[in-house]
């Protein structure tokens, strides 16, 4: 294992200070992207997507191209040597010679960590099963910082599939390290956050967690409402998914109880958990959030490739 290489496979791989550095650089890039357009000239980002992705993969590709770098990789494991039975460790040990950094999405939980143990270049976790998705969290945090001006003293309601939603797990794990954070977790009883994660957060951080089954019970208190999709692909039982898929549908009516400066976020894609009529509400920020994903990933790539100071 190369211990000198910096990876982002778990939110805790970055300190709060390092997370703030990424976000602040992302905001600088957002305000003046031209200044950073040649930062990664001559560098290659490898994209190893063993599972389908639209936003994460394309936002990483866009980020690298906007930095003047190039990308190569695969978006379907069936078209790679994996199909022939190649192990993850072997794939990584070859591709780290072809690229300057690797971003990986994988259905198995912990796969990016395994990759990082064999890679000589930075590995970025682009989502591993129902486990973690740290770069979505960076996207969430840069959006919060941009619109709220700070990432502390916030009441955050997170609604939907909290069991399988990896974006939720990373967001909880990261925000718990910021000051004075209160979580309202809204889910059907079957989709509560994993017990091991809840115990870890409460044992490790000074954080408040309240759980609800009805969104109406806490929406008026929230500064941020983070809606999530029920993760169909993680269910072993189709009937169970059909029963739970419409557990929460946010409408403009429901938002009438919420604060006027509430931010509604969603990692996307949405299915039907946010009604289209919410899109016209000024509190809906999920498309702006998706746009910030490119800027914060530009910042992350620049920092991991140690070129951020060259702009």
């Amino acid at each position, binding site marked *: 294992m190369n211990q000198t290489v910096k990876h982002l496979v778990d939110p805790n791989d970055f300190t709060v200070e390092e997370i703030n550095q990424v976000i602040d650089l992302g905001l600088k890039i957002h305000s003046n992207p031209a200044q950073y357009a040649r930062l990664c000239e001559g560098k290659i980002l490898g994209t190893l997507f063993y599972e389908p992705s639209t936003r994460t993969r394309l936002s990483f590709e866009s980020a690298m191209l906007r930095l003047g770098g190039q990308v190569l990789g695969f978006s379907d494991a069936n078209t790679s040597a994996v199909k022939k039975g190649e*192990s993850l*460790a072997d794939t990584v040990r070859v591709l780290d010679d072809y690229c300057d950094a690797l971003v990986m999405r994988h259905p*198995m*939980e*912990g796969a990016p960590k*395994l990759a990082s143990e*064999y890679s000589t270049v930075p590995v970025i976790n682009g989502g591993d*099963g129902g*486990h973690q998705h740290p770069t979505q969290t960076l996207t969430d945090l840069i959006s919060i910082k941009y619109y709220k001006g700070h990432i502390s003293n916030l009441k955050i309601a997170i609604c939907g599939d909290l069991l399988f939603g990896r974006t939720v797990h990373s967001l909880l794990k990261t925000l718990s390290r910021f000051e004075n954070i209160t979580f309202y977790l809204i889910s059907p009883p079957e989709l509560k956050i994993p017990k091991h994660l809840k115990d*870890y957060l409460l044992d490790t951080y000074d954080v408040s967690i309240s759980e609800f089954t009805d969104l109406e019970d806490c929406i008026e208190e929230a500064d941020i409402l983070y809606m999530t999709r029920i993760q169909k692909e993680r269910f072993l039982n189709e009937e169970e998914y059909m029963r739970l898929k419409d557990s929460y549908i946010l409408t403009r009516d429901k938002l009438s109880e919420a604060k006027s400066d509430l931010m509604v976020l969603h990692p996307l894609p949405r299915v039907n958990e946010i009604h289209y009529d919410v899109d016209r509400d000024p509190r809906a920020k999920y498309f702006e959030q998706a746009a910030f994903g490119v800027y914060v990933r530009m910042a992350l790539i620049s920092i991991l490739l140690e070129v951020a100071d060259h702009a």
Partner: protein
Amino acid sequence: MLKVTGIQKGIVIDHIAKGNGIKIFEKLNLAKVNYPVVLLINVSSQKLGQKDIIKIQDNVDIDFTMLGLIDPKATVNIIEDEKIVSKMSLEIPKEVTGLFQCKNPRCVTSVDDYAVPKFTRVENGKIQYRCNYCEELTEYKL
């Protein structure tokens, strides 16, 4: 009364809780070794009522992590020239590598031979380990 003589050189694992002797014997693969091994079960003990004992002749290289996991209250005596030259007390290991599987079927360690299951003990009063890959908690059971 059954009598088992002492050993010249090796290890005596004493104060094994009744019933754990055979489990340690199996987990340490002692049935397959080519040096003498004695497993005593249901031996009278002032401390435990009954206990198990394992004596291993000519070898001191055994997996103490595994031993601590199975029976942290057992004691280990290292023998040379028929005398105890050192006594070791065991403890439940903080880090465990490759001794059991993660319970999460979606964990990378369940499908990839390169991913040897690694765990860190969680201080919650139970013998539970957090997977270093997927973070799921696995309770160690024989």
